[in-house]
């Protein structure tokens, strides 16, 4: 099992990056620690063949989902906009994307959308791996990814009121 410990240890920086983007810096390491403990306790369930990273992300995802459920009463997580974001009004002079608010804009995504966006866009898992980690069909990955990206783009183009001061 020395190999297992080493292989998992190599993945810790990536788990931390993902957790930090998913739940914020304060809670990230707790989530990663829970993930490592669970991975260790289930190490005999890993067949030694599959992609270890996807296996670890799956564990982390399940912990995250439980966490989200536990806090389901929190208002921030109640507004899960799974519906299509309103289409952008076509315009020849669309505002440039302002990325400074991206971290905050992530909060506008539902947990489901945020996970897909981060697994694909940040962790660069392929779509099939992402579907495995999240235990959803491939088509769901694609539609969540499309919604997440479009929602972020919309938020970053129509920034909060703070932006108006700069424009006007």
């Amino acid at each position, binding site marked *: 099992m020395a190999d*297992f*410990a080493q292989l*998992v*240890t*190599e993945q*810790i*920086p*990536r788990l*931390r*990056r993902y957790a*930090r*983007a998913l739940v914020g810096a304060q809670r*990230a*390491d707790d989530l*990663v*620690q829970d993930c*490592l*403990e669970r991975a*260790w306790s289930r190490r005999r369930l890993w067949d030694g063949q599959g992609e270890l990273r996807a296996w670890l992300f799956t564990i982390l995802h399940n912990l995250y989902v439980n966490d989200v459920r536990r806090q389901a009463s929190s208002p921030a997580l109640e507004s899960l906009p799974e519906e299509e974001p309103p289409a952008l009004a*076509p315009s020849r002079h*669309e505002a440039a*994307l302002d*990325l400074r608010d*991206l*971290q905050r804009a992530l909060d506008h995504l539902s947990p489901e959308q945020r996970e897909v*966006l*981060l697994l*694909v*866009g*940040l*962790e*660069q898992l*392929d*779509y099939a791996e992402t579907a495995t980690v999240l235990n959803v069909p491939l088509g769901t990955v*694609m539609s969540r*990814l*499309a919604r997440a*990206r479009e929602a*972020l*783009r919309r938020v*970053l183009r129509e920034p909060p009121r703070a932006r108006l001061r700069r424009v006007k």
Partner: protein
Amino acid sequence: MMNAEPVDEADLHAYVDGRLEPARYAAVEAYLEANPTERQRLADYRAIDAELHRLFDPALNEPVPASLRLPPMRRWTTAPVWLARAAAAAGFMLFGGALGWFAHERVQQPLVADRAFVRQALAAHVVYVPEVRHPVEVDAGQQQHLVAWLSKRLGTAIRAPALESLGFQLLGGRLLPADGKPAAQFMYQDAGGRRLTLYVRGLADNRDTAFRFAEQDGIGAFYWVDGDLAYALIGDLDRPSLDQAAHAVYRQLNP
């Protein structure tokens, strides 16, 4: 007509993510050619991904706290928080440095380039780096096209890592022959005019991912094999700088 299937949303995201099947590239490129607003939309998606990396990649470089170790220690739930923190800090001093995740694979002494692809990469470096007017075939101004083109020719999605944080700007890239197969070379330059090249080619049936260093005529090369792609990062830099650049490349290609 081949590829007559209309371009759909999944194709566009696969294009953004470098996961489009090579056979679909032409269709997507044609679609984007005809729809500039769609091209902009995809550029925005890419910009979002790049910003995600800028925001969160620093987590990859931080020392891992001792609390995140294997086998995990039971959390010290009955101890006061400050005591747990102090213990963690003490553990960190002992443990923190040991986590470079491929340090264990690094070969300490310089080697001769024992692999054909490294010799090819060095040869390409020596030929093209001195070029003043035509160092690259496609310049970085067309980076999207460059990457798509080279990905298509290599038959697998490749990327041009960003090395701005180390002061190196992408100049562009070119396609090269390698044993009758295509190889790609990206070239970077810093403000002092120093140049780096990243050489990428396919390599079948190879599971070796060790991170190695070779030197030839004063030019250093870090090279590694990842899956079916072989990489060599080459530059006339001191070894620590080149090592740092190679780590940056490796991290971006294996995030």
